[in-house]
């Protein structure tokens, strides 16, 4: 990975002052050892008019992969860093930022012992980074650098010139130019913004990362229009590290076995929720509608099938009429998050005895699910491929057979009302289908008929006269339950 910093000058202010500022002699090539390889500093040009310093970091990929893991076990927590095929040796990532701060530490602090007046002076600067990973593309590059007084050019790098159809890579060739910044400011900008643009989910983060950000951002970050994005991207790397270490490894390996990206498989927990309105998001409306229907059905023992991160379970717990609540999900990751959300390990025994979280799958029948009053399938069916839906139907309506089943799913007709949703798109990347009201009703009627349920329908969210509500709900009631209640009445 590589970057250059250039300046112009004249007899009064020679460009070679850059050598003083950086504390590196323009006549020498120097090397410094950093934690991930060797950093080299040298000057391709250095005279009165023009002076360019180059920072080149040689990364040792083999060491990167083999760092701190068991022999041959593929145990490194961080999937992307554990690849020998890695852009880190070439792209200007957070590793380069770390090297920058190490090699040019006094320049970064604006200190120059020999010429104390130099660092305070703004001078013409040109920074060139030939391969900068930029999540957010050239647009974000401009939004990040231009408010700071840079004139930025970000040229996208094509993925592969032999395959133009693949489009551009995530890298840009970045050129920054400014007449009115000091070198220290420039370096601090790079130190923070290179990793922000890289936005890799993997990075070793030390506990004093917040302090580092505050120090490097002093004087420019507080007023920056993208402050929120910068801060959250810079710091978000911290928890993803631990998360990956504990929960994803098995799935990472299955993805690798199939030449897939981990994100293709490990996506049960949505990074961003669906297109939502404010002030009352649709998810809240949905939970309200479900709770109302459950209360009306008189259910006390309730299954939340596909409970995800446990938001509905949390609501159900607040109402003591629900004496037994079971949240089931196929994603172990989702259940871990749900358990954290519900604070299961700190809950009192009486409360805790009302709730259970289970890993399970509706592609299989499951004896644990028999004998409940009601089951909720909220935004679940659309995450299944259509050919596999009959297995779910059998597992829920044929085998578990709760008295009441509530099913919610998006109403595809409503999608035209989402301004941010391009035409013809589904609301969530993992939705395998989205049904119109008619399609949903036909499905529900067939399932009800086949398994001995009666079914009714209710809208969730504003019921648009033309396209219907954003979410549709079907309410199934087992049609032999009348007998049950009679029998129970007689027995009593």
């Amino acid at each position, binding site marked *: 990975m590589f970057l250059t910093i250039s300046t112009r000058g004249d007899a009064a202010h020679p460009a070679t002052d850059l050598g003083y500022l950086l504390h590196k002699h323009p006549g020498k090539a120097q090397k410094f050892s950093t934690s991930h390889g060797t950093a080299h500093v040298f000057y391709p040009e250095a005279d009165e008019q023009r002076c360019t310093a180059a920072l*080149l970091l040689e990364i040792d990929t083999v060491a990167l992969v083999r760092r701190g893991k068991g022999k041959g076990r593929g145990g490194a927590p961080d999937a992307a860093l554990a690849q020998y095929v890695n852009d880190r040796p070439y792209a200007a990532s957070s590793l380069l930022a770390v090297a920058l701060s190490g090699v040019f530490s006094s320049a970064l602090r604006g200190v120059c012992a020999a010429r104390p007046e130099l660092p305070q002076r703004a001078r013409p600067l040109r920074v060139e980074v030939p391969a900068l990973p930029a999540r957010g593309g050239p647009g974000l590059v401009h939004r990040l650098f231009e408010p700071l007084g840079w004139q930025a050019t970000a040229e996208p790098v094509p993925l592969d010139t032999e395959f133009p159809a693949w489009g551009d890579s995530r890298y840009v060739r970045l050129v920054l130019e400014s007449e009115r910044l000091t070198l220290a400011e420039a370096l601090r900008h790079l130190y923070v913004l290179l990793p922000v643009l890289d936005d890799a989910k993997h990075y070793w983060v030390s506990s004093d990362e917040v302090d580092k950000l505050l120090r490097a951002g002093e004087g420019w970050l507080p007023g920056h229009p993208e402050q929120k994005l910068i801060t959250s991207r810079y710091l978000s790397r911290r928890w993803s590290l631990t998360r990956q270490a504990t929960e994803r490894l098995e799935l990472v390996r299955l993805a690798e076995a199939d030449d897939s990206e981990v994100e293709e498989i490990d996506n049960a927990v949505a990074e961003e929720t669906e297109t939502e309105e404010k002030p009352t998001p649709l998810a809240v409306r949905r939970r309200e509608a479900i709770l109302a229907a459950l209360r009306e059905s008189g259910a006390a023992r309730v299954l939340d099938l596909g409970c995800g991160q446990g938001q509905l379970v949390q609501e159900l717990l607040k109402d003591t009429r629900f004496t037994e609540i079971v949240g089931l999900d196929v994603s172990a990751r989702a259940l871990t998050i749900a358990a954290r959300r519900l604070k299961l390990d700190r809950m009192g025994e009486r409360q805790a005895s009302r709730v259970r979280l289970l890993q399970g799958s509706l592609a299989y029948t499951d004896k644990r699910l028999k004998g409940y009053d009601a089951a909720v399938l909220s935004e679940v069916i659309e995450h299944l491929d259509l050919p596999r839906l009959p297995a779910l139907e059998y597992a829920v309506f044929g085998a578990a057979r709760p008295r009441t089943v509530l099913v919610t799913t998006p109403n595809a007709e409503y999608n035209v009302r989402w301004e941010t949703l391009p035409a013809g798109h589904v609301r969530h990347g993992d939705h395998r289908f989205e049904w119109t009201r008619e399609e949903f009703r036909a499905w529900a009627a067939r399932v009800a008929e086949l398994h001995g349920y009666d079914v009714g329908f209710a809208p969730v969210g504003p019921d648009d006269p033309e396209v219907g509500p954003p979410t549709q709900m079907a309410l199934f009631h087992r049609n032999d339950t009348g007998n049950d209640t009679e029998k129970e009445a007689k027995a009593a």
Partner: protein
Amino acid sequence: MTETQQEGRVLPVTDLSLVVLVGASGSGKSTFARRHFKPTEVISSDFCRGLVSDDENDQGATRDAFDVLHYIAGKRLAAGRRTVVDATSVQQDSRRQLIELAKKYDVLPVAIVLDVPEEVCAERNAARTDRADMPRRVIQRHIRELRRSLRHLEREGFRKVHVLRGTEQIDGATVVTEKRFNDLTHLTGPFDIIGDIHGCSAELQSLLGKLGYVDGVHPDGRTAVFVGDLVDRGPDSPGVLRRVMSMVGSGHALCVPGNHENKYGRYLKGRKVQHTHGLAETIAQMEGESEEFKAEVRRFLDGLVSHYVLDGGKLVVCHAGLPEKYHGRTSGRVRSHALYGDTTGETDEFGLPVRYPWAEDYRGRAAVVYGHTPVPQASWLNNTICLDTGAVFGGRLTALRWPERELVDVPAERVWYEPTRPLRAEAPGGLDGRPLDLADVYGRRAVETRHAGMVAVREENAAAALEVMSRFAIDPRLLPYLPPTMAPTATSRVDGYLEHPEEAFAQYARDGVERVVCEEKHMGSRAVALVCRDAEAAAKRFGVQGPTGSLYTRTGRPFFDDEQVTEEILARLRSAVTDAGLWDELATDWLLVDAELMPWSLKAAGLLRGQYAAVGAASGAVFPGALGALEAAAARGVDVGGLLERQRERAADAAAFTAAYRRYCWITDGLDGVHLAPFQLLAVQGRSLAALPHDEQLALIDRLVEHDGTRLLRTTRRLYVDTGDPESVRAGVDWWLEMTGRGGEGMVVKPVGAVVRSGSPRSSEAESGGGEGRLVQPGIKCRGREYLRIIYGPEYTRPDNLARLRQRFLNHKRSLALREYALGLEALDRLAEGEPLWRVHEAVFGVLALESEPVDPRL
């Protein structure tokens, strides 16, 4: 219970029973138990007292001690192990709890009473330091209670009661183990199991004839087994009884009772029964029979055993079906279950009891063959089959040949009796209703394989597999196999190489494999194709409506999102199979094929963009500037040391990397440019082809490729090598060098014999199954030098990198490859043998779960 004082009383005790020793403190129960039973069979209350309180005589701990005792006894009985309870058990209440326990686990309770004079007991206790101060009145009370109990023991529920009086009789007694009546595991048949006859004598005669019986005797020594319901409704129940009784009497048949015999037997004993459901016909037909015959029938019916466990435990025959926990058990509940089956307690619109679909839940190892519920067609469901095809209602009379698992039937001559309710439209479970249960796959498991014994699956791996299988995989019915991972060759020491075929040849030579085939490795994506002759064949064999097969990846995901594309590829494959004449030649309607689908860029597009091409793009962007800057610095006279040269090498490595991945990418348009290279036919109807030698495999595949008119199929180049012949080995190495030198991915070296065991048996190893030595690797990959840049990074060939990368550890990968291979073979065997879906799925799921084990992904 005779009291005659004879030497050596013989006490028969059933092999699976709960034996309750009854006797006062000091009567010698523990000594008796030690002498006659295995130490692990005996649980004593004193021992349990010690477990919970550290003091074997702490009476305050009695309640907890008995909880523990009952718990242990329950676990043993559930596992089918005889259990002896060594406690005084002189009080009726304590015995009642034990009898309940025996009933709960459906085993016989047996009592052995040790009636010893008070003085003897007192003397013995006095000799024991821990009981020396036991009050005399305790023993007196024990003996009083024991004497009072003696008369009631059988009425309390003990099925056998042995009373031994005095020390002499006790010391002289011997215990003999008796088998249960239903345990005929020593009989191996072959059997012809015959469904519900219901007085259809003529149909029985013609079925027996079709099965090859001549006057009730089979020339090959086969044994007929009747599943009951011989009588009622039909035209000639006496005729059927006469035939069956004579065959059973002469040892050519076995018979279990049906509910109809049971009711008729009660009638014959003079009990009051309703003459409904066809009983009236039987009674009328028997009018003309002699009293002698009637008495014979009564004795016959009286002696029928509720169910039989046959053929080493692989086969259970009973009338109405039986869950696994009742197999070989003995209780009233088991008998009534065997006769009437399980019902939900509801009645249907015809007033008949609604039967519980027990077969859907069945997961047992033994095949259960039964009748009772008329079905239009006999078909297997979860290793169970109902043979009642409604002969008396005008259906068919059906038999099952065992172990051949062939069905033989004859049509009814006419409708002899109108059914109360119409026959169910389909067999239990039906086409859609072959549900897989979470218990088939979830949690820590051990899958039994015929090639490598038990293969363990860990809980966290099963959990990951559950997620991927549920969310991404295709319908499990169309997913009968997943390919195992493959180990690379041992690391090479040859200069500049990480992998080199010499090591692979040497490894097979060490394993005693002489002839190997080197198969060109196609750099695409693994694809398994299940292709059926047509949609009807797919529906018939795999129970799916619509698709004619499947095409899936190595984790069971559909290869193409668009079903139309899948069907188009299957259609092309199908026409090649048809034109090559393989349907008939292999006598099959379906074919499972292991293949590689190209180009790699078709499926790995995400990975290419995100990782491979990205690295190429980044390196391509960075080097011109970096080299230019270094050259400029050098031109200024700055000593840049070796840096410039090193960067030039790195740039060249990066360019080589880009060239390496580009070879496996090309633009496709629809299916133009898409190629499928089959390299193994895995299974066809009734037969796993995994053991078919690779030369024969490749010959079949060559014919497929020849008959493909659509340019979809690609051949696999190959070279045969003799691992013991240096010339041949050199030719193999040259072939590989030439192929990889032109950018080929490499090759896979396989024993020509396909499934091969090493010559040196090492049965202690986890990988070994049978006694013929250890399974050898089914294939070893040798990847090309340039190709490995995609795996180990652009600069892996630099000497210092190579030196470090040679430190790689292959053992886990090899073990994983063998375990997955064994599971894959098992899935194919289960599929070929027509085992239930859950059995096939269990092995397939195991492969997926193991794929999530922690192994260096670059191997």
